């Protein structure tokens, strides 16, 4: 948490007539303070965890206390993608496309066992064993589904992560492309990750050889 009294005492002598009227702080801190206090999640639910995500928005847990109640249906307007539920092979192209459509700065929270690792469904033929195989994840929240308290704690961890970022190093102010674009997986006989196309081809060829031999 940002200590607000600290915000007003930057270590400079402030003339008495200005005290209480100006705030002096570092750019990083005010920038991060703004971002962390209005994290807009994408309205995006995949499975069971999405229900707990809605419960967190609901009266008892009230995520609005953290400035996160504005669920945006469009990825273009959202800051954080809560991957709430099992990611299937059929769905993962859409998830990656949504991630690509989000503007920087963007964060990903893997909510629940399925999004983190495949969870109870990992053995399934249509299940992606963790969304981190495709998009970078900032916070993992364990649980099946995580309780609302756990989700709130995970979001607070994300706030802590934001607090530690510096405007000088963040990737969206560096030279080069604005945003990380991840190649969208393709549905073939199984899920094809374009980044691994060469490797898949090589292993499939090796398999064919061992079958012949």
């Amino acid at each position, binding site marked *: 948490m940002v200590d607000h009294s600290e915000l007003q005492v930057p270590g400079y002598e402030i003339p008495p007539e200005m005290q209480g009227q100006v705030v002096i702080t570092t750019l990083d801190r005010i920038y991060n303070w703004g971002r962390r206090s209005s994290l807009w999640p994408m*309205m*995006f*639910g*995949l*499975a*069971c965890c*999405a*229900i*707990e995500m*809605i*419960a967190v*928005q*609901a*009266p*008892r847990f009230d995520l609005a206390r953290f400035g996160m109640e504005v669920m945006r*249906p469009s990825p273009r307007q959202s800051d954080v993608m809560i991957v709430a*539920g*099992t990611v*299937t*092979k*059929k*769905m993962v192209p*859409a998830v990656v496309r*949504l991630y690509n459509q989000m503007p920087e700065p963007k964060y990903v929270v893997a909510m629940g066992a399925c999004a983190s690792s*495949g969870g*109870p*469904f*990992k*053995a*399934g*033929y*249509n*299940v*992606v*064993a963790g969304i981190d*195989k495709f998009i970078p994840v900032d916070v993992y929240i364990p649980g*099946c*589904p995580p*309780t609302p308290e756990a989700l709130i704690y995970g979001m607070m961890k994300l706030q802590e992560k934001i607090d530690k970022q510096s405007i000088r190093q963040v990737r969206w102010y560096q030279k080069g492309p604005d945003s990380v674009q991840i190649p969208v997986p*393709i*549905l*073939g*006989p*199984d*899920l*094809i990750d*374009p980044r691994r*196309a060469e490797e*898949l*081809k090589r*292993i*499939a*060829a*090796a*398999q*064919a050889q061992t*079958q012949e031999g």
Partner: protein
Amino acid sequence: MATVTAPALDLAARFPQAVRPDTRPGYSGWIVEKDHLLEVATALRDEFGYDLLSSVTGVDYYPDTMEVVYHAYKTTGGPGIVFKVQVPRQDPIEVPSVTPIWAGAEFQEREAWDLLGIRFVGHPDLRRILTWEGFAGHPLRKDWKEPFYEEEAKPYKSRWPDGKFFYAEEKNPFKDNLKFPPDFNPEDWTPDKADALLYASLARYLKSDDELKTDRVIINLGPQHPSTHGVFRAVAVLDGETVVALKPVVGYLHRNHEKIGERNTFLQNMPFTDRLDYFNSMSNNWAYALAVEKLMGIQVPERAEYLRVIMAELSRIQNHLILIGMLLNDLGAYFTPSLYAFEERELILDIFEAASGSRMMCNYHRFGGVVRDIPPEALQKLKGLVYDRLPRKVDEFDRLLTENEILVSRLKGVGKLSAEDAIRYSITGPVLRACGVPYDVRRAEPYGIYDRFDFDVAVRYNGDVYDWYLIRLDEIRQSLRILDQAIRQMPEGPVMSTKPQYQVRVPPGEAYGRIEAPKGELGFYVVSNGKPNPWRYHVRAPSFVNITALEKMCVGNKIADFVVILGAIDIVLGELDR
């Protein structure tokens, strides 16, 4: 309660050439010759009154036979009939489609084609449904192995008794949950293959036959769309704003319950049923427990029966409240009504948590009872809810919403479905009852102890979305009546008839357990071969079967009404895609 029993139906006498009784030990019903299937099915519907086809599924009796299993019921109530078609297990496996007789078989037959590779001859639109076009193989066949295949059945030798830990990825050549045909080359693959057949099936609607030269457009809703209640996708052909054709595309949450379920032991499947309809884990548990208890032939103690009823009715109440809240969301009353609904839901979840230890994934039922008794404090809370708070809140919902002008004008006359169509499409649950068919499994074929309670089967007659909404309020009130009686009558006593055990002994045979889940008829078809794992574990999910009629409901309405209709059918993707 005395029930009139109809004389047992002797199909073999009616069709001596085509039907013979299924005499395998533990099995029941009839085996129909493939060539006479349509004839027998027509007679069953028209002569014998089995108008509601509940479930169609396949079983792979590797290595010889492939079997298609049909469960049909009468909407006037009473026990159902099960009949099967056996075909040799050699491609092409072909069975006539029963869609001309029961339109509700359409998606279930597509599922059987997708997962088992049974080709239904005469099916109007036989495409893959849960996986995608181009997927290699039919996953529920016994000789099809998933990429993370380790052994046929749990407990795996690597984990028990010694427990040697390894990552599933290590044993897979692709180091991931992947499996490609040998010599597969990703560069030769055309990426649009998955949707080509879908758009081809819509092409005939694109030509407009009126004199004005207007274009019809195809629009895609989902799989990520704020109003589709999850990862549901629909592709609609529009004439202006009016829906001309609409195809649901599902499978975006296909989590392979059935394949995983065949590897699991019987008891290990219980927590997986929680994750089907994740609003109503208590009801799902019950349906599965019912099916396995039928196979095992065990009884449930009195107190456990009452606890089951209490939990199931509570989950019905919270399901319907959420549905109403979310329906208003879809209408544009953004969030406020659903906040009201979630407030009540939390109070009900408190009781679930106190009894089972978990808010959502309760895993509460066991074969022969429930896992633990309800604590006295939770019972006290429950009484407060049932006798005081919930009746007031239902009235409040009623007062705030029912007469609301916007709600009425958006819902009245939308999505209209006749009783005949609803039955033809195998629709069950509140939607069927709102079309004027008083069919409720709790009355039609009482399970548990529902024959002891005094309640009305809620029924409405217009079959539009407004009635679908009203019937939810009616059902909440009826559930409160049942809860009132259940709490008063509940005796003291044990909650398990057997001693808690990790491994249950299930004799060979088949069983179909079905309950009136909040969304419709939820059935589990379980086949055991005497081993610790089910040979076949099939879920007849109400959401999945109910959306068979989605196109019928939407055609002629505006595209904005599609969202409302979909919301009011009450689908949940965990159960729809399984």
